[in-house]
């Protein structure tokens, strides 16, 4: 008898816990991001002000996972309302029917900046994937590699090197190193890119895990030069690591907000996207993260010193190649396979 009572209590508690957790979550807007420093910065720059402006609670969680979203939409059990994704995933999710369409009558299309308003996503930050270097090793500005051709040139720029172990961005970088014009990258000449990668391959000490890997490898002294993301380099610099970053010939990508299909809070979610796209919040996020604000009206609000370090600053943006999300949404599966085969050889 005693056991049965105990089991009964446990079962009751379990069911009650599930019921109540479901209830408390249902009143909030549930926003999902990539977590870490970035998540904390979003809380301060966007979620706190949005809570005040909208008079709601925002429950923010990490981390974004496309497989989870697909499972939610398939099962109809929607636990996330708004999600921060790599803009590449907007197209991929659209194909799978994972997003609600964006109502650009409610949100000013100008906030989408150079990317432009997308049917299913609101772009909000720009990111640069470029060359990072150890400033102790390359002291003179003349010694610093400034193009991917320089990165490939191991005689003129000696040093240990890291590239990412993810094929996305890597093919672009390899083609730039081979002399392709940044404006004429797409459609990518894949064979040429792999031939170019083959040339640098013996000189790559580490194939690092994105997005932090490249920066970590320089900070730990494992390599002197790396493919890295601009905000990670800035974060490491703040912690005192001897790092520098080159925007020239960087691969420019963006992150976007999407709304999960079937969310019970569609109107609230749309309003949230309008609120957080306002210039003052985007400017604050840029100051905290070194990601470039997408809304053109936000850039002038960022302090001048910091502005020059952002991917969307005109001088920095000019030398970059913009990643073609559609090309990658179409070809990434095949490229991952080819890259795995190439790497295993």
């Amino acid at each position: 008898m005693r056991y049965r009572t105990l089991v009964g209590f446990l079962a009751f508690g379990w069911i009650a816990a599930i019921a109540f957790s479901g209830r408390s979550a249902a009143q909030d807007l549930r926003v999902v991001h990539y977590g870490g420093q970035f998540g904390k910065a979003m809380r301060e720059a966007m979620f706190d002000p949005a809570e005040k402006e909208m008079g709601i609670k925002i429950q923010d969680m990490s981390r974004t996972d496309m497989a989870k979203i697909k499972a939610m939409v398939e099962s109809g059990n929607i636990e996330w309302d708004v999600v921060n994704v790599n803009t590449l995933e907007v197209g991929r999710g659209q194909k799978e029917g994972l997003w609600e369409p964006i109502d650009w009558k409610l949100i000013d299309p100008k906030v989408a900046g150079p990317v432009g308003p997308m049917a299913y996503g609101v772009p909000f930050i720009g990111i640069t994937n470029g060359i990072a270097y150890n400033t102790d090793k390359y002291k003179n500005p003349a010694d610093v590699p400034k193009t991917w051709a320089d990165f490939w040139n191991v005689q003129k720029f000696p040093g240990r090197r890291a590239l990412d172990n993810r094929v996305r961005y890597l093919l672009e970088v390899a083609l730039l190193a081979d002399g392709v014009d940044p404006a004429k990258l797409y459609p990518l000449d894949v064979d040429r890119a792999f031939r170019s990668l083959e040339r640098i391959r013996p000189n790559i000490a580490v194939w690092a895990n994105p997005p932090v890997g490249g920066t970590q490898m320089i900070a730990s002294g494992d390599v002197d030069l790396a493919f890295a993301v601009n905000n990670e380099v800035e974060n490491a610099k703040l912690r005192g690591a001897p790092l520098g970053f080159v925007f020239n010939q960087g691969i420019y990508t963006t992150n976007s907000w999407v709304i999960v299909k079937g969310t019970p809070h569609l109107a609230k979610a749309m309003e949230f996207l309008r609120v957080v796209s306002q210039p003052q919040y985007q400017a604050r996020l840029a100051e905290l993260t070194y990601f470039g604000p997408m809304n053109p009206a936000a850039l002038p609000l960022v302090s001048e010193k910091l502005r020059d370090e952002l991917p969307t600053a005109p001088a920095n943006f000019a030398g970059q190649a913009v990643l073609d999300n559609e090309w990658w949404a179409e070809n990434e599966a095949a490229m991952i396979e080819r890259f795995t085969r190439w790497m295993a050889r």
Partner: protein
Amino acid sequence: MTAAAEAERTRPRGRFMARLDIANLLWILPAALMFGVFYVGGFVQMLWRSVSEGGGGLGNYEEALSGEVYAIVFWNTAKVAVAVTAACLLIGYPLAYVMSRLRPNAQRVVLALVLIPFWISALVRNYSWIAILNRNGIVNSLLMLLGIIREPLPLIYNMTGVIVGMTYVLIPFMVLTLYGAMRGIEDVYLRASASLGASTSMTFRRVFLPLSLPGIWAGCLLVFTIAVGFFITPAMLGGGRVPMIATAIESQIHDVLNWGLGSALSVILLVWVLLIYAAFSRILGVKALLSRH
């Protein structure tokens, strides 16, 4: 409770011989539900996805089996798993041997030491290896300081790093399995061997080692099976050079949302492991694998 029932309850063999009545079924229920819903249910769903998504039929299996890429990845996974299993056995066997011959109190201390890594997050353990093995890590710094090497050795971000990291994580599985088998080896046999004039090394080779064989096979099978599914250590310590099947499956599920192919690869991995298990049990008999004596 009657005296007879009390006697029935406390009689050691009686408990194992209990019939599978309703009361006993109730005790099994939580485990059965757990396995039924989360394991069997999940597996059936995966099986269904592998033949229904991405074109349907056997297309996913054809893609997984015909292309060169997954053959390379499976082969690579097998190589790593075999190397890790061998390393675990080489390090784990002497440790388990000494442990099983210690006095009970000392045994408990060593057992705790073996188990401690189990309670530390895998992430922390992998980061520790990075700190130990990287270019400016403890090992390379020490060797350079002593003048043994001039350039740091590439101990990490390659196959070596992966094997070291995985061996460290999996050694407890090997040691515990061996220890269980070795504790069942009575001292009487060893004393009998010695009294018949066998040297210590001969007693070990002719008596102890053969008696511990089932433990060796069981430990190897356990470590190998876990090793083929490893994900985090190859990802962190492999420097992108050690493609494993778990990484390939993860990439299909999370990166490109191709659940059909991801499921097919998972099913192939499962069949592969089952075949190895079948081969082992065919050679040794399932009983040898399951028993501790």
